[in-house]
């Protein structure tokens, strides 16, 4: 696949601050038009990665190629990138409209999507005329989303995009992302909200302490994790007979809950058939459970 088929490509990317290693040897490719989720606990290196991809930080090792351009070599490619920082800050005395005009002007592209975004995020002319210092956290976040996406970027780097948004606005944001993707925009979304990543993204990467733990599709990650099996029996059963198939995480007298790997499922079902089974529930893990399982 040619290089520019991957809007994001990180090769051995690393960042150290003195003795502190923020990111180690990150190798990652995000495909054209893909919605890619970036998960990890606080301090895992998510924001560092995004800032390295934008060239705001200079890498200690490796390099990043964004939209087919080596990040350190030029700046013009950033015209096709929309960026929402995790903790977005504005100029307190500027109005919302002045802020959007200024940042749109710096992008060097017409802000064709601005009016549509403002409408969907319910930021009206009255709000835009006010100084940003009078905005609530939610309004600032909405302004942050609009400034990132107003110039219809080819690549959107969004760090915690729904922070501070109410559920209705979160819904509006998801619809905006879906529309962008229909128009071919690649979305790189860093979030703590796993349900959000699960909803928006096809593929995810998980970071831990600056290292990539795993990369895969949301479905694949969920499938790879152990199933939650809840079995109800007519009478108490011997737990040792079930513990052989997986991890018993809870048990009452007639109810047993286990985590079981996919490979052990047929044998477990066969064994359960020999016991006085009343009810059986098998659940795939949510991405959140898969995430927690990886970080436990």
């Amino acid at each position, binding site marked *: 696949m040619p290089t520019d088929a991957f809007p994001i490509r990180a090769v051995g990317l690393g960042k150290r601050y003195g003795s502190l290693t923020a990111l180690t040897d990150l190798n990652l490719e995000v495909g054209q038009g893909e919605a890619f989720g970036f998960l990890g606990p606080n301090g895992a290196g998510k924001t560092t990665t995004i*800032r390295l991809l934008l060239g705001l930080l200079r890498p200690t090792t490796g390099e990043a190629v964004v939209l087919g351009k080596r990040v350190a070599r030029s*700046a013009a490619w950033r015209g096709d990138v929309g960026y929402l920082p995790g903790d977005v*800050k504005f100029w307190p005395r500027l109005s919302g409209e002045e802020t959007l005009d200024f940042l749109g002007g710096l992008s060097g592209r017409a802000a064709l999507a601005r009016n549509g975004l403002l409408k969907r995020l319910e930021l009206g002319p009255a709000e835009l005329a006010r100084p940003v210092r009078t905005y609530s956290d939610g309004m600032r976040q909405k302004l942050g989303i609009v400034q990132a996406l107003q110039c219809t970027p080819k690549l959107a780097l969004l760090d915690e995009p729904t922070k501070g948004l109410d559920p209705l606005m979160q819904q509006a944001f998801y619809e905006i992302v879906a529309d962008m993707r229909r128009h071919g925009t690649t979305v790189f979304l860093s979030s703590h909200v796993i349900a959000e990543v699960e909803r928006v993204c096809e593929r995810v990467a998980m970071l831990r302490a600056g290292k990539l733990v795993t990369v895969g599709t949301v479905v694949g990650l969920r499938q790879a994790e152990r199933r939650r099996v809840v079995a109800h029996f007519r009478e108490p059963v011997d737990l040792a007979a079930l513990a052989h198939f997986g991890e018993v995480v809870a048990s009452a007298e007639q109810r047993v809950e286990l985590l079981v790997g996919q490979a052990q499922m047929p044998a477990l079902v066969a064994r359960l058939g020999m016991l006085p089974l009343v009810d059986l529930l098998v659940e795939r893990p949510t991405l959140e459970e898969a995430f927690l399982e990886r970080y436990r």
Partner: protein
Amino acid sequence: MSAMRVLLRHHVRLHRMPLVPLAAGLALFEWIMTFVARQPAVSRFLTSALNAAPPEFLALLNQDLVSSVSAQGIIGVGYAHPFALLMMAVVAVRVPSAALAGEIGRGTMDLMAARPVMRAAHVAAALTATLAGLAILAAAAYAGTLVGLVFRPVEGVSALRYGLVALQLWLTFACWGCVALAASALSREPGQAIAWAAGLMAGSYVLDYAARVWTLLAPLRPFSLFRYYEPQRVVNAGISGIDVLVPGAVGAAALLVAFGVFWRRDL
């Protein structure tokens, strides 16, 4: 619209409000000096006061006033007065500190640097805004002198001479603006940049003063940038080559640091 123009408009928007009272204050101050200069009573008072004053005080004024207290000299004092210097220093430090370190400290540099703008353009825009702000203040100072002398001429005093003084005032503080820009490029917070730039400026001023009153320190005087700013000398003899060369060289070196550091640093 080019990114440079957009950045310049941004600086104008952020700094226009403080610039207006600073320029007005400086113009008014220099106008008052022309008014004071033509009062015979003031000249008599100053003559007797300066004759009685200790040399350390006269050195503080950076003027050779003891030998002749003239209207020309009094107007020249207006350009070396700490008030005028302070007004210029505010712009020379404030604009560059707010432009780079200020944006980084506030967290807004991320939004700006994530755009298709070379980092050098951020430094160049901050430099242009600083030089323009200082030019407005120097022009305002000269305008105050000019208005005072045109509407009520003082015998033997030409307003044109103070144009050169205003130019030298601008050049001196343009150099300090470049130093502040280098400090800003090296800092993560505006307070840090302001502390460095203002500290260096104050140190240079104190060195110049100390070297004039204390002969032991006299050989160090050339190391102070204020050594190359003497309004009285400019009024009498024009701008000398070294008074342009040294601030120009220091400013250029500071700019190299600013561009070089900001190009490479983490934001």
